[in-house]
């Protein structure tokens, strides 16, 4: 595994994309999308994070193993959030209503 050197141009492009993403997410926050505002905000944040991970953190050029570990990290976070939220979302279902 020899190391891969990412070009400066790539870094600057990614930087501009990140700035654009930031601008976009702020603008979208002021548009009323009802329940979808949070989805859009998280999608943009996710895209920005992916750019940072892929290029700044060189994961695009790293071994499959590294890619897998990054995925594992986010999957575990998802497990924690999703399973616990299942509790809070379904807690009320069975309660007797007067």
């Amino acid at each position: 595994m020899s190391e891969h050197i990412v070009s400066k141009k790539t870094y600057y492009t990614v930087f501009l994309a990140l700035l654009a993403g930031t601008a976009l997410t702020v603008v979208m926050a002021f548009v009323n999308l009802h329940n979808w505002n949070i989805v859009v905000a998280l999608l943009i944040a996710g895209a920005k994070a992916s750019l940072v991970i892929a290029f700044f953190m060189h994961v695009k050029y790293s071994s499959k193993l590294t890619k897998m570990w990054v995925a594992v990290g986010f999957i575990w976070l998802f497990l924690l959030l999703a399973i616990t939220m299942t509790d809070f979302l379904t807690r009320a279902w069975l309660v007797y209503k007067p």
Partner: protein
Amino acid sequence: MAILVTARTMALIESETAPERVEMHAEHHPQLAHHFESMEQQREAGTLGMWWFLLTEIMFFGGMFLAYTVYRHMYFSAFAEGSNVLSIWWGTFNTAVLIGSSLTMALAVFHAQTGNAKKTTLFLLLTIFLGLVFLRVKYIEYSDKFAEHVFPAGAFEWPTHEAPAGPHNVGDLLLMLTGFEATHEPSVTQQGLPVKVTTNHAEAGPYYGVAGPIPEEIENPSNAGHVRMFFWLYFAMTGFHALHMIIGIGILLVLAVQAWKKKFSREYHSYVELTGLYWHFVDIVWIFLFALLYLVDRHP
């Protein structure tokens, strides 16, 4: 017999003093630790270790993201109220600053990889500078909140007036960052613009099993207690984030000195790379914090 044993023992002791093993790698880099076989292996180990450390960081912040998700689900309107008094101007500015610092960090790694000690130092220093700007803005924001008594511990006052608008132009910004201009002007807004209360989301009912949405008229227009939930999350999450920034800046300072002293080379620069990974991770956390804390229900 005894002589035989003694002779064998002597032979053994003798052989102990001989070099233990033939070195397998002819070119022995001065920075190669004794237990690694090659620089390649050493670098790989460092990278893998850093990634795993970052995975633990994901789970560490994950606990707070979990608390955020749960309480946002329960008290959405309170979260919207709280989020709306955070300064979106400062938030956006800081996001840009941190993204910029990620860029300078990436460039520092680039120059380390290509063996340019001067530029490595320069970009490390730039990264530190941008990190400090971020912390300075965070300090401004925190002191605003303290002044308005929306710090969750102690005397928490709610509703509060709207967030300070932030600087009006670049000169203003520089004066604020350097502390020549007050960032908090209570007199202008103390009258208090009415705090927006969302009604399109019923306050979550499931807590202790109350079924269904609560009718709108019962909803507390200034649910101070629940806004407090938002603010402790805001301070805990941004606080732990800032702590990571401070640690990062400390490490960067050491690296900058080492880079200046030409400690790093084309072959040996993994500390710069690893710190880069850490720094970018802190950036990613902020990207999510910005979306989750500053942008809740902003639209009119």
